[in-house]
């Protein structure tokens, strides 16, 4: 490699650096600045200091409502999805025939779940005379007005996400299969019960992927848009009016870019704080086995 510039590698990453500046760095700073302005399309920006934020937290009832339902949505969706993914991964992690078949079957919803077509399907499933109510009717259970009640409406969009547990499950399964079998053999010789083995060996060794899945799923859940937009349209009574919906309508329907940026930054701050808390707490509960990790 003699005679080559020590900047050679830099040329290869240059596209990324340019993209980082233009499409991430500058917009990131700009949106922070915009959040302190009154910026409407066609009229330009006017600096208003903290006014947007003061409005958000003191006068804007829609924001407070939206913030509450967003937090509820994330608190409901992420643990449910991860618990389900882990549960199925543990069951799959035995010498089963047809493991590939089941893995594929569970993974299909993750591939399709983000599609608008599936959101459309959800409307049919939970419609008044939809699939779920028809199935309930077979068992003589009265039809439920899924989209009419705030709690059940929230349930429908949560379920759409939990249904897509496949990608988290595949990650859990890969981690489970990389656990050293001799650990289990040693535990079996000591006569440890299965539950004990799970709690003392499997779970600690899985904490790195649990942590990874937790952070990724949380960041995503805070940005959920398609489900509430297409399935419930934020309703009823704004019970599923998640913050990304509010940001979208403020920015791209009302073109009130300054105020929308302030909402986006409030959302960003919440995600940041929770991510930092997750990283900080991970020192206490995430177990890294020696230097095997790299």
């Amino acid at each position: 490699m003699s005679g080559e510039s020590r900047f050679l590698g830099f040329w290869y990453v240059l596209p990324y650096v340019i993209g980082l500046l233009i499409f991430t760095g500058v917009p990131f700073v700009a949106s922070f600045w915009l959040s302190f302005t009154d910026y409407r399309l066609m009229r330009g920006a006017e600096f208003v200091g903290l006014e947007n934020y003061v409005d958000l937290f003191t006068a804007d009832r829609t924001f407070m409502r939206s913030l509450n339902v967003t937090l509820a949505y994330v608190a409901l969706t992420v643990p449910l999805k991860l618990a389900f993914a882990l549960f199925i991964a543990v069951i799959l992690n035995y010498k089963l025939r047809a493991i590939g078949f089941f893995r594929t079957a569970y993974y299909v919803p993750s591939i399709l779940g983000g599609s608008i077509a599936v959101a459309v399907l959800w409307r049919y499933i939970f419609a008044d005379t939809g699939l779920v109510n028809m199935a309930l009717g077979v068992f003589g259970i009265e039809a439920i007005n899924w989209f009419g009640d705030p709690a059940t409406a929230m349930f429908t969009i949560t379920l759409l996400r939990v249904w897509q547990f496949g990608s988290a499950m595949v990650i859990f399964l890969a981690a489970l299969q990389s656990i050293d079998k001799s650990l289990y053999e040693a535990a079996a010789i000591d006569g440890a019960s299965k539950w004990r083995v799970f709690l003392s060996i499997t779970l600690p060794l899985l904490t790195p992927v649990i942590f990874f899945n937790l952070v990724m799923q949380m960041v995503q859940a805070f940005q959920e848009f398609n489900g509430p937009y297409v399935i419930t349209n934020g309703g009823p009574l704004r019970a599923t009016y998640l913050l990304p919906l509010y940001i979208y309508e403020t920015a791209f329907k009302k073109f009130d870019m300054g105020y929308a940026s302030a909402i986006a930054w409030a959302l960003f701050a919440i995600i940041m704080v929770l991510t930092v808390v997750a990283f900080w707490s991970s020192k206490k509960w995430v177990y890294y086995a020696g230097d095997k990790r790299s």
Partner: protein
Amino acid sequence: MSQTMLDDSAAFDADAEAARHLALQERRGRISMILRYAVLTAVGVLMLYPLIWLIGASFKNNAEIFASPGFIPKDPTLSGYVKGWETSTPYTFGRFFWNTFLIIAPKVIFTVISCAAVAYGFARFQFPGKRILFASLIATLLLPNVVTRIPQYLLFSEMGWLDSYLPLWVPSAFAGDAFFVFMLVQFLRSIPPDMEEAARVDGAKSWQVLIFIVAPMLTPALISVALFQFMWTMNDFLGPLIYLSSVEKFPVSLALKLSIDTSEAFDWNRILAMSVLALAPSLVVFFMAQKYFIEGISAGGVKG
């Protein structure tokens, strides 16, 4: 003598005990195995039934769709597909598929090329600022798009790119999806650079090494990247929703939303048929190449 007999019988007892224990364990093992299959099958059916129902119901007539939870149409009809293909716009659904393709193809190509080059730079070279740049890659993985979306929109609007595919294409030419770069870097790190070094000793330039040695080795990972980008772009809704305003440029996702807004109240099988069509490309690609999806996701851990 008696001592040995005693030992023998003790050993015999222990053997019998062990055999009984083993049989018990085996039976327990079989029961737990049956239980496992039962749970897996029940969950699988419950999860896939909505999709199966969707396909079946798309061949039902409008009166039958909300009549029973079964999926087999009593009186199969293609009318949903015929009407769905026509759409309620001046264009056929084929036009929206073509638009989707026009968005996806350049995006996938740009992504594969730019991400491969950038990953090569990160994985195989030392240069000033590398550590900070690599850290920024991880940071952008966690950075919510929601915070950069508004200024990006203003930027593209300033450049006169609204209502064109440029805002959807251009970021991918600059390795805009940090996740893919990260995944390729991980993949490259697991390959020893011996071959590349041999080629360099023989006088190959670094770009020749990238094209003729690294790229072929990276192929499985690059296929994963292309497939994931295909799926994500296929599913992308918010991007086209913000940037595209003329119906003639709509991809399938927007066309579908448009049709539920205009005809959901009465034309159910048409909406369902369009949904099946919208999902079909993803399903076909997934079943043809699922190995790459599972490997890609296990290697890097993907969103979704």
